[in-house]
């Protein structure tokens, strides 16, 4: 069972691992897709592509600026990219996003994992709060088996 990994999305790309990886870090490329909403406009992209470097992407939606920002934690081209992520306008939570890219037969497979609970709230090797939901589900399944 995964511990703190909460949101996981996998995707195949026909492009090479390098190209997919660079699309996250090249300012002119990343501004074209990441956090760009169909009706919005990306008005600011800053990428300091080194461990500890900051990134900011601002999307303007109906005249309202929404800032997405964070710091790069790990940059290992073209395999692995880890960065923190927050949207201060909507939440004070900082989450961590890990992008892993595996070369495939044609192109590559990308796995994105977002852990929701920042390190200061949760020790690194203890079970995440999903444990609760899992625990509840276990209980419920048992309850159903016994009562229904």
């Amino acid at each position: 069972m995964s511990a703190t990994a909460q949101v996981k999305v996998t995707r195949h790309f026909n492009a090479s691992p390098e190209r997919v990886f660079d699309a996250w870090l090249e300012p002119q490329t990343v501004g074209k897709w990441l956090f760009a909403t169909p009706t919005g406009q990306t008005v600011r992209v800053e990428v300091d592509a080194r461990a500890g470097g900051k990134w900011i992407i601002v999307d303007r939606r109906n005249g309202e600026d929404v800032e997405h920002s964070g710091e790069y934690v790990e940059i290992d081209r073209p395999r692995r990219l880890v960065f923190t992520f927050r949207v201060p306008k909507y939440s004070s939570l900082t989450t961590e996003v890990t992008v892993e890219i595996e070369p495939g037969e044609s192109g590559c497979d990308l796995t994105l994992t977002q852990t929701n609970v920042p390190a200061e709230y949760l020790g690194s090797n203890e079970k995440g709060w999903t444990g609760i939901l899992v625990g509840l589900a276990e209980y419920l399944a048992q309850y159903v088996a016994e009562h229904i």
Partner: protein
Amino acid sequence: MAALPGLVEFRINGSIRCDGFGSQMETMVNKYSTKWLTIFVHPLILNRMVERSNIALDPVFRALGDPTRRAMLRTLATGERNIGELAAPFRMSFAAASKHVKVLEGAGLVRRRVQGRRHVCRIQPAPLAAADEWLQFYHRLWTEQLDRLDALLESEDRRATERPKGKDAKR
């Protein structure tokens, strides 16, 4: 109160679609979730519950970040308990257990009522559901982002093949 955990069950089933859990869980919940839905609660009721309650997630995640409190919640999912009962498995004092319960209360995860000398605690599922909703939101968000990246790379490829080769091969 059996209907209470039923609410949580629905949302658990929802979150499994976002790959947060192992496949064993998926099988188990798929097997039972429909029953739970029809027997206990219509999903809309819960959705309205979450919307109306306007739950702050930060305290929820903070409260859930502690293993003792998670264990307490797991116990409470099986029914009401007083503070002493919650403290028992941890060999902790009433005061220490009460402190944990206070954090859970602050996050809206637990409600406590005083019955004579007993402090009876009951789980409140709405914040768990809200936390799950949050996860689903991000699952959708990332799926959309990767869709857009894929579309961008594909369109660059098309443009590159339409042009005379040599130029802009990487773009």
